[in-house]
């Protein structure tokens, strides 16, 4: 490790001397031929229209070039040409698995720009929905990861079975299963009924049982251990330098969770821990997701206990036609995939002058080649799966 950022200086290096296969990315007459395989954009395991051009020596990857942009939808430019409110449903489509937390990040940025305050109940609701989204995202991710590992959909369908319950709650609250469009500048759109809160609480109370069963199915499985431990190691110094965030970074042992660092929303009121991995491999990334789900359950049960009554919307907040004063704002949250940030630059008009998303999926993807080199093609899809990308967010 060269010189880690001061914030992470306390982290002892979990890695000794660099080990594992050293790979030469050469292609000349002395080293035989490399087989160049184009995986994607139509490939079952690239999680959407992502493409990896892998050069293989036998089954070993000696070069891997990620190609993206197939799902580019001009998100940022569209947002610069519509009102602040009208961008909110578009943020649903960024990371379409976690629209609730993406909404929050955008709302946070606009609220910062407007100087808008948020009532307590809405703050609690935001935490509740964001943590539920985290659970949804992580359980889906683990399911997809196991699909990449070659199960016949079983863990994925178990995860989907549970996810469905969360999604149903989202639907009955916001009207839509995935494109929730729930947060507003200054609060939330709909107030949940007491029945809704009770149902959500029951769901959360039962969720650890599912997690236990899930772990019994997967965590100790010898094949799973052999397929994931030591695969796709990510050095913490490299991860920090590359701007990796979220569970991928924490799996490498770097203690960086924006919920703790920024304590945005009401996160400072909740008691939760941040799990850290020591090896930075695929197994750690998988286990961190499981552990974070358990922490989310803890946060959620506290939130259900403490949620106050009251308005969910600041009565002074404007409904539409927002015209923030000229200025800029950057707001970030700890999304399920990592640091999700929105940067807004206002010139006083009804549209943002500049709108920029910091998508965790894209930035976490940048070290894909480094993680894959020296591993086999079978591992590359697993490593990609463990990074947890959503192409809607990568390509925007």
């Amino acid at each position, binding site marked *: 490790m060269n010189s880690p950022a001061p914030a992470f200086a306390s982290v002892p290096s979990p890695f000794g001397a660099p080990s594992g296969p050293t790979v030469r990315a050469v292609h000349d007459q002395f080293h035989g031929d490399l087989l160049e395989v184009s995986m994607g954009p139509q490939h079952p395991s690239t999680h959407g229209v992502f493409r990896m051009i892998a050069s293989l020596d036998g089954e070993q990857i000696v070069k891997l070039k990620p190609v993206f942009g197939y799902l580019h939808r001009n998100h940022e430019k569209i947002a610069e040409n519509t009102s602040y409110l009208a*961008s*909110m449903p578009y943020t649903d489509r960024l990371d379409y698995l976690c629209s609730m937390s993406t909404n929050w990040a955008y709302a946070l940025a606009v609220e910062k720009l407007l100087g808008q305050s948020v009532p307590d109940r809405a703050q609690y609701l935001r935490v509740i929905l964001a943590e539920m989204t985290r659970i949804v995202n992580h359980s889906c991710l683990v399911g997809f990861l196991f699909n990449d590992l070659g199960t016949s959909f079983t863990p994925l369908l178990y995860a989907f079975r549970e996810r469905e319950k969360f999604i149903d709650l989202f639907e009955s609250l916001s*009207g*839509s299963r995935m494109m929730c*469009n729930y947060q507003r500048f200054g609060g939330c759109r709909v107030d949940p009924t007491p029945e809704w809160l009770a149902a959500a609480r029951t769901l959360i109370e039962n969720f650890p049982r599912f997690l236990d069963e899930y772990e*019994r199915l997967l965590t*100790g499985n010898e094949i799973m251990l052999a397929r994931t431990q030591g695969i796709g190691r990510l050095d913490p110094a490299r991860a920090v330098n590359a701007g990796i965030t979220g569970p991928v970074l924490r799996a490498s042992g770097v203690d960086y969770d924006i919920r703790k660092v920024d304590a945005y929303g009401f996160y400072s009121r909740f008691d939760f821990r941040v799990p850290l991995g020591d090896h930075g491999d695929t197994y750690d990334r998988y286990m961190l997701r499981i552990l974070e789900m358990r922490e989310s359950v803890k946060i959620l049960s506290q939130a259900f206990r403490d949620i106050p009554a009251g308005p969910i919307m600041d*009565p002074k907040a404007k*409904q*539409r036609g927002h015209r923030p004063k000229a200025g800029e704002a950057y707001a970030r949250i700890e999304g399920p995939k990592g640091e999700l940030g929105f940067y807004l630059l206002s010139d006083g008009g009804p549209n943002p002058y500049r709108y920029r998303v910091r998508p965790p999926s894209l930035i976490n993807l940048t070290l894909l080649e480094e993680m894959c080199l020296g591993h086999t093609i079978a591992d590359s899809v697993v490593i990609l799966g463990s990074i947890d990308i959503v192409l809607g967010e990568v390509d925007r």
Partner: protein
Amino acid sequence: MLGSGIIKGLAVTAKNFLGSYHDPARMVTVEYPEQPTVLPEAYRNFPFLISEDAADPMGTLRCVSCQICEKECPPQCIVIEKSKDKKPDATGKPQLYPLTFNIDISVCMSCQICVEVCPFDAIKMDKVFEVAVTNRFDGLLLTRDQLAKPNSYYHDIHPAEAAEVDERLAAERKAAEEKAKAAAAAKAAAAAAKATPTPKPSDGPTEASAKGGTAA
């Protein structure tokens, strides 16, 4: 011992296999066309226009063609053409009405922003989701006539919300009537007392209270 994790996993799948026969929590499949899905009340799909009277939908549209929804619609799937003349609305007040009101639901992303910004409670979200048609251009372009649905339909699909809206509208109308009455009385009194100019009937308060209402 090598293999114990695998055996544990096999036990879990076996449990789920058996559970799928007796445990409804493990068997969540709904056989859709035979078993209709129960949609939550908040469910939203595509917008429709509310008319007061099912017998004369075009005559009693609540929409006054203010074009706020057209402006706010994120994917800009709404096209409105204002009328030149005014027709009396449900309260008898003359209002503009939409000559054209088209929603291209192949573009619409069901975000509900049009509903939120409408000051007249004229556009609401429908629950119809089986909208497959054979022509994806004209078939998915809904016109004014296709969009207009009576208020009773709104009550059917979103009972609680519709009741709230109706209550609010009734209160507003009452307030407006009282105000108009008061104004008329005042005018009469004023006319009786002095020949002063009539105060202009204003729709400002209606709009303001409607705005407050949509937040709920």
